[in-house]
């Protein structure tokens, strides 16, 4: 059920558990996916273009991370992070596979080739062997990073892999994606202006919707919200390195109307939860709760064991340090006395 959602926790228990933090850093704090068209706020936090625009438009004009005031006009592209995500996500499946395999075997299969002039810049620490594999390189050309889809084995640019997976590998050719290899020179897409509900007439918004080929039915509020969401979706798409087609964005808008908007008229969550009869609910879900209690208890035990192990290791380390000091002490004393003697 969950195996198709790559998550930072995938690195836990692998030989490179530190990559969990790298993985997490390259993800949007709102959707928790790898950044799509990352935008940096005035306060220095980065989010997907769509996530942050949608949030600033509909929910609050504050940065979701530090709560400082933010406006859409302050957002700037974070090009370095975009490239980082591209490179990391292109290699992720391979690295994960390699480190998981390595975790099973005590001795790593792939060892450093005797000479690697491309990397040897003389700064490498001696004494510690680093492992490096060449087989990712066969998948990657330095110019246009092509990656293999872990599901259908199709080759496509790293930037397109997330969307490709989201579409269950069905997008190849279906919507004429830009990554198909035909490098057509297309006109750069332009962002569109938001409308101000206070100063814009309904007729104007209706005309704008019509110009874009969107539905013009619904109340005044519906029209404004539809256009607002259209601007959000469209402008986020423009920020994308590989923008999608207009009909794709129209599909997104339709999906938004049939899920988010349609559900606003449903019972608010507060009411749904109020109407729950506690006793009945607990009885109906007894098995679920028993299982959850077991899981929660296990997590306490696991953390306790980890802590004990850590303390033990620390103590052992401390003991070793003490032993070493004791071993050295006579020498030090001697040299101190010698030194003293020399001075006197």
């Amino acid at each position, binding site marked *: 059920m969950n195996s198709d959602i790559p998550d930072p926790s995938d690195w836990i228990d692998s030989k490179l558990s530190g990559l969990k933090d790298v993985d997490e850093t390259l993800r949007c704090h709102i959707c928790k996916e790898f950044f799509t068209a990352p935008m940096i706020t005035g306060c220095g936090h980065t989010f997907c273009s769509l996530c942050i625009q949608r949030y600033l438009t509909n929910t609050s004009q504050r940065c979701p991370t530090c709560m400082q005031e933010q406006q859409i006009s302050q957002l700037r592209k974070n090009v370095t992070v975009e490239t980082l995500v591209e490179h990391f996500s292109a290699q992720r499946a391979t690295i994960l596979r390699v480190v998981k395999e390595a975790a099973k075997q005590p001795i790593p299969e792939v060892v450093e080739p005797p000479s690697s002039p491309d990397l040897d810049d003389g700064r490498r620490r001696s004494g510690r062997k680093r492992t490096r594999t060449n087989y990712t390189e066969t998948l990657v050309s330095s110019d246009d990073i092509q990656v293999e889809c872990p599901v259908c084995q199709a080759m496509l640019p790293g930037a397109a892999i997330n969307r490709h997976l989201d579409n269950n590998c069905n997008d190849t050719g279906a919507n004429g994606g830009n990554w198909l290899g035909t490098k057509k020179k297309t006109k750069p897409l332009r962002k569109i202006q938001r409308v101000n509900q206070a100063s814009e007439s309904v007729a104007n918004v209706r005309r704008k919707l019509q110009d874009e080929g969107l539905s013009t039915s619904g109340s005044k509020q519906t029209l404004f919200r539809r256009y607002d969401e259209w601007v959000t979706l469209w402008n986020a798409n423009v920020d994308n390195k590989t923008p999608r087609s207009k009909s794709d964005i129209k599909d997104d808008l339709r999906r938004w109307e049939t899920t988010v908007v349609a559900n*606003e008229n449903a019972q608010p969550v507060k009411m749904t939860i109020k109407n*729950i009869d506690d006793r009945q609910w607990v009885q109906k879900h007894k098995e679920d709760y028993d299982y959850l209690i077991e899981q929660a208890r296990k997590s306490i035990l696991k953390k306790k064991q980890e802590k004990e192990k850590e303390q033990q290791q620390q103590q052992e380390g401390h003991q070793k340090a003490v032993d070493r000091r004791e071993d050295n002490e006579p020498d030090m004393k001697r040299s101190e006395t010698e030194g003293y003697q020399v001075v006197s």
Partner: protein
Amino acid sequence: MSTTARRRLMRDFKRMQQDPPQGVSASPVADNVLTWNAVIIGPAETPFEDGTFRMVLQFDEQYPNKPPAVKFVSQMFHPNVYSSGELCLDILQNRWSPTYDVAAILTSVQSLLNDPNTSSPANVEASMLYKDHRQQYEKRVRDTVEASWTD
């Protein structure tokens, strides 16, 4: 249908399975990813120690831009929990941020247990006992802990 909210919730679920915070657990109910059951074990060295407090979380399609509604379905005695089981917790209301996930919500509720906010109590009696008659307060809490074992 996979929507932004549902995909995010699947992600939250994966996180809860692979990297759960200590002493909490949660999962969506069988037929609806928008409704979750959750359990918080009362933290050690507090009156809530070892309680198995059951909760329900209700999300909607606006998650994570809007917080879920959260309530205890176990009996609670706490200054910030209404008799209905609903919580008065700032991060679930005006201080909500879309960066929070299920793990973050549950950790916040967990730390609220032993660190109540008595300035705007949801349960006046619990708040008064907590401030002025701590022993009686702890006794009442222990009662709910014992009750939680037989839920």
